[in-house]
């Protein structure tokens, strides 16, 4: 550990310090606004520090962490998403009767875990990051502990994440037992490099790791917790679970399977193909007639991860770019949709029923417009970020001749369109058609939430209409990934 190394992990250090500072601030003076400002300052500091770090990148810090352009890009993405989550959480928590400030300590900790994951090229840092993220998430899910659903979500997430972590550890252990190393790069040279090894240990090891990874990504058949947790967790937390937690894991998935070359193994390819197809089909089917908006979003996220796996399986630089781009688009839209949900929620319940959205256009036209745009992007309608993202996914898949997967992607996207349009139809119902009695008093919208939504909308359209600059950044970042 020397000065350069410390510079390289600056974002991680800043996040850590920010978490401690917020905690100390809470015990000195309990103020929601203060906690939020400190959190935002910490995140902004970490984000700005990325440019400082870029001067020393790429660099291997201890055997555990690699700080390269790829890691920096994903850290930036995670920090930005956390930033938006915090803004959404502020407006949301203002309406709640509970301790509010600790949530930000947890959010910072979780972001730290995710940031560690994207920079790890070693099983130990992988697992450390994962656990830091998970443990914080348990508490975040159950944060509103005077309600039933968040508690249920927290418990379910706790138990199932522990189960899956056990699988993951077992998988790592098997690989270590055979290869004697925990470093991705060394695994690569042994796995592909011609060293003879016992497949009966390595392959189950990989399969068990896929279980652990698949759980975090919420892909079939490890997906079943998703709707319950999304439904139960407070809306901003659900946004966080859907973006930061999954984003960190996607980054790791790419790095782990690409840098170790494991994606080239036939059986790994087969397993992921099954996962991708099953996720696309099951995710979209499950959402079809669902009436709870948060559950719909949960199912749709399952399908979206399935889409990403299609490009992931294509392999290579282009595929990594496509996945990363799609992830960015997915971040923007997911934060946007959950943002709308959290803006509309009140102190008693989250606005997650379809009834809450019936005729929304006539009550809150701009918000309804934003929500429509976000949903259209999720559905992949042109001129939105989602369309460009899907386009790249399909392009990557086609270039690798994965026609079966592409076909599933296209067909299930059509099915997906149905439930997105169902929400949109509900939004634009005229007041006369709305049968359910909507509470006369609308919740006061938080200005901070509106601001975040406005920013996300601009970003959505910008990426959709003019994806060039974002694509350049991603290409630059992904080029540092050492694909084996």
């Amino acid at each position, binding site marked *: 550990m020397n000065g350069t190394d410390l510079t390289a992990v600056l974002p991680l250090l800043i996040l850590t310090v920010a978490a*401690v500072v917020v905690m*100390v601030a809470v015990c000195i003076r309990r103020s929601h606004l203060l906690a939020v400002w400190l959190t935002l300052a910490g995140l902004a500091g970490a984000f700005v520090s990325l440019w400082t770090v870029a001067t020393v990148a790429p660099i291997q810090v201890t055997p555990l962490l690699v700080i390269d352009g790829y890691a920096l890009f994903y850290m930036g993405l995670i920090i930005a998403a956390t930033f938006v989550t915090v803004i959404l959480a502020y407006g949301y928590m203002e309406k709640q009767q509970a301790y509010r400030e600790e949530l930000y300590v947890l959010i910072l900790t979780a972001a730290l875990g995710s940031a560690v994951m994207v920079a790890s090229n070693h099983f130990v840092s992988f697992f450390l990051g994962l656990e830091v993220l998970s443990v914080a998430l348990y508490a975040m899910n159950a944060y509103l502990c005077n309600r039933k659903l968040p508690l249920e979500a927290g418990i379910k997430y706790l138990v199932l994440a522990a189960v899956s972590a056990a699988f993951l550890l077992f998988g790592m252990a098997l690989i270590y037992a055979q290869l004697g190393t925990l470093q991705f790069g060394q695994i690569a040279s042994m796995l592909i490099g011609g060293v003879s090894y016992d497949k009966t240990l390595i392959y189950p090891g990989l399969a068990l790791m896929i279980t652990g990874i698949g759980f975090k990504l919420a892909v079939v058949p490890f997906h079943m917790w998703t709707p319950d947790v999304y439904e139960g967790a407070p809306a901003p937390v659900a946004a966080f679970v859907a973006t930061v937690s999954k984003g960190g894991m996607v980054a790791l998935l790419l790095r782990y399977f690409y840098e170790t070359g494991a994606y080239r193994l036939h059986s790994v390819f087969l397993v992921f193909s099954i996962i991708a197809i099953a996720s696309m089909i099951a995710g979209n089917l499950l959402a079809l007639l669902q009436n709870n908006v948060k559950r719909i979003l949960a199912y749709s996220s399952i399908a979206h991860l399935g889409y990403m796996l299609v490009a992931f399986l294509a392999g290579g630089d282009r595929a990594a770019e496509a996945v990363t781009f799609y992830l960015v688009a997915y971040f923007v839209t997911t934060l946007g949709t959950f943002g709308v949900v959290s803006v509309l929620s009140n102190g008693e319940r989250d606005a997650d029923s379809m009834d809450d959205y019936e005729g929304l256009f006539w009550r809150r036209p701009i918000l309804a417009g934003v929500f429509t745009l976000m949903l259209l992007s999720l559905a992949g309608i042109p001129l939105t970020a989602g369309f460009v993202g899907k386009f790249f996914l399909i392009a990557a898949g086609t270039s690798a001749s994965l026609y079966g997967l592409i076909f599933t992607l296209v067909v299930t996207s059509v099915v997906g369109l149905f439930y997105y349009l169902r929400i949109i139809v509900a939004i634009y119902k005229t007041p006369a058609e709305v049968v359910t009695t909507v509470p006369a008093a609308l919740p006061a919208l938080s200005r901070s939430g509106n601001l975040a939504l406005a920013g996300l909308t601009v970003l959505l359209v910008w990426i959709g209409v003019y994806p060039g600059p974002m694509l350049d950044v991603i290409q630059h970042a992904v080029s540092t990934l050492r694909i084996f």
Partner: protein
Amino acid sequence: MVLWPFVVFFFVVLLVPAGMIVLSHVLGQRHSEHATGSPYEAGIVSEGSAEVRFSIKFYLIAMFFVVFDLEAVFIVSWAVAAREVGWAGYLEILFFTIILVATLAYLWRLGALDWGPKTRRKTR
């Protein structure tokens, strides 16, 4: 790989307990008096429920104990190698301890260490 001993073993494992249950069911005697269902057939009839609620404080303190006890393990492991890791190690453990202290201070301030019903501050 020779698979058949494994298969045989598997079925034997299934058969032995199944046989025990079935045999005892067939061979065992059966009776049904009015006290058969109670815990102590020949004792005093039990009163109330066994599910007594303990104060949540016990669990809380127990958890704090586990957490901080575990952290102490790290400090011990540093102490063992204190000379070898040098000042860098010292700084690291210092930061670690500072964070621990901050956490403790937070818990204290939150009222988590108070042993009484009314000391928790109201929200807001």
